């Protein structure tokens, strides 16, 4: 069902129940958010996407990601109150992840150059002083990849994200989706001849697969196994064991052959 909502005075159409954050971004309204990804369920942890509901079932400040669109809903994204809350939140983030360029840049955009709060000091932080505990890595690993290699450890201010017992974890697919979704680029991994080392995740080592054609290492073995399982068997058998480059070449070669056959006929 298509409905009408109002963002900062401008009417927008959307589907009922759609996340207001999604709608706002589609409409080009900038709302910052760290813990949101369109492929995952709304989480409501980073609190950056706070908006003010001026007309709707429950008026007041709430997060846009968890707010569901309904006809007649009216929100404002930049009231003085919202900006004030966001600024203090950014100060808290600056203290928590003092090394993060993303946080510094967003804070600067909001006119915040430094934080009043004591900066977190963690000399051996595997997440390089950049993690803000948004949980995207944990959720993508568990909910999308189905691996559950990492999780939250502890609670409250002592919460960390890592592998169980801070040990190498063979549940890791080595896919790097965690690093991909991380809003602060806190997660580090490195490919060292035939092995992917998940540096942030207790140095978990994942073997890389060698291309059957060119011999280059191209993807983690457990990840390819995971991905092949999801593929159409016909395609899977064609591309198995090839790196993306060789796969493209192989596809092109086949296409040419096919066309040649067509012409021949």
């Amino acid at each position, binding site marked *: 069902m298509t409905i009408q909502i109002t963002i900062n005075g401008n009417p927008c159409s959307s589907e009922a129940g759609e996340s207001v954050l999604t709608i706002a971004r589609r409409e080009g309204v900038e709302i910052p958010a760290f813990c949101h990804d369109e492929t995952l369920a709304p989480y409501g942890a980073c609190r950056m996407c706070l908006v003010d509901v001026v007309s709707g079932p429950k008026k007041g400040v709430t997060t846009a990601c968890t707010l569901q669109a309904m006809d007649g809903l009216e929100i404002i994204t930049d009231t003085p109150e919202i900006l004030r809350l966001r600024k203090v939140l950014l100060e808290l983030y600056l203290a928590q992840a003092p090394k993060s360029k993303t946080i510094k840049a967003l804070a600067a955009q909001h006119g915040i150059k430094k934080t009043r709060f004591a900066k977190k000091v963690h000399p051996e932080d595997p997440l390089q002083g950049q993690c803000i505990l948004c949980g995207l890595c944990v959720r993508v690993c*568990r909910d999308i990849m189905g*691996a*559950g*290699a*990492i*999780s*939250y*450890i*502890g*609670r*409250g*201010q*002592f919460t960390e994200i890592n*592998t*169980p*017992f801070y040990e190498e*974890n063979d*549940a890791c697919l080595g896919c790097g989706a965690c690093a991909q979704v991380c809003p602060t680029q806190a997660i580090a991994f490195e490919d060292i001849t035939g092995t992917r080392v998940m540096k942030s995740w207790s140095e978990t080592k994942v073997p890389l697969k060698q291309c059957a054609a060119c011999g280059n290492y191209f993807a983690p073995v457990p990840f390819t196994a995971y991905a092949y399982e999801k593929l159409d068997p016909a395609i899977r058998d064609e591309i198995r064991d090839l790196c993306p480059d060789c796969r493209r070449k192989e596809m092109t070669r086949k296409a040419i052959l096919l066309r040649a056959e067509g012409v021949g006929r």
Partner: protein
Amino acid sequence: METARLNEIVESYPTPTGKILGILEQVQREDGYLQKDVLKTLAEKLEVPLSELYSIATFYSFFTLEKLGRHVVTVCMGTACHVRGAPALADTLKALLKVEEDETTQDGKFQLTTADNDFTVTSARCFGACSMAPVLRVDNKIFGYMTPERIPAVLKQFGWEEDTHQNA
């Protein structure tokens, strides 16, 4: 914990409601802590990632990953106990049992075990025995209206002697 016993505990939960926490609680009660191997076995048995079980074990304060002493002395840190002198009880216990904190955490929580593994001193948020504040619990026994002066007598009931721990 023996695998047979672990299986028994798992099987005592026919429905998923309250199952995972219930199993871990029973293991904690019987073993005195959650061992890595037991968690690994459970992860396979219950078909949940080990990371989830580890997450639960470190989230809920009921669970410990290190073995507790033969007797567990818990100081209630609830509001009524706090206003009636619980912090002094904790200090006295630490001094008597000669357990030192490596580092004082900001939240004031502690879990300290004596060198001979006889006693673990720890804190809890509230036993709901507020009328007898301040309160101590040794194993499953509650001691109300506690004062620092009465602590030695309580500990003696559990085999503590002033001198044996002097040089521990």
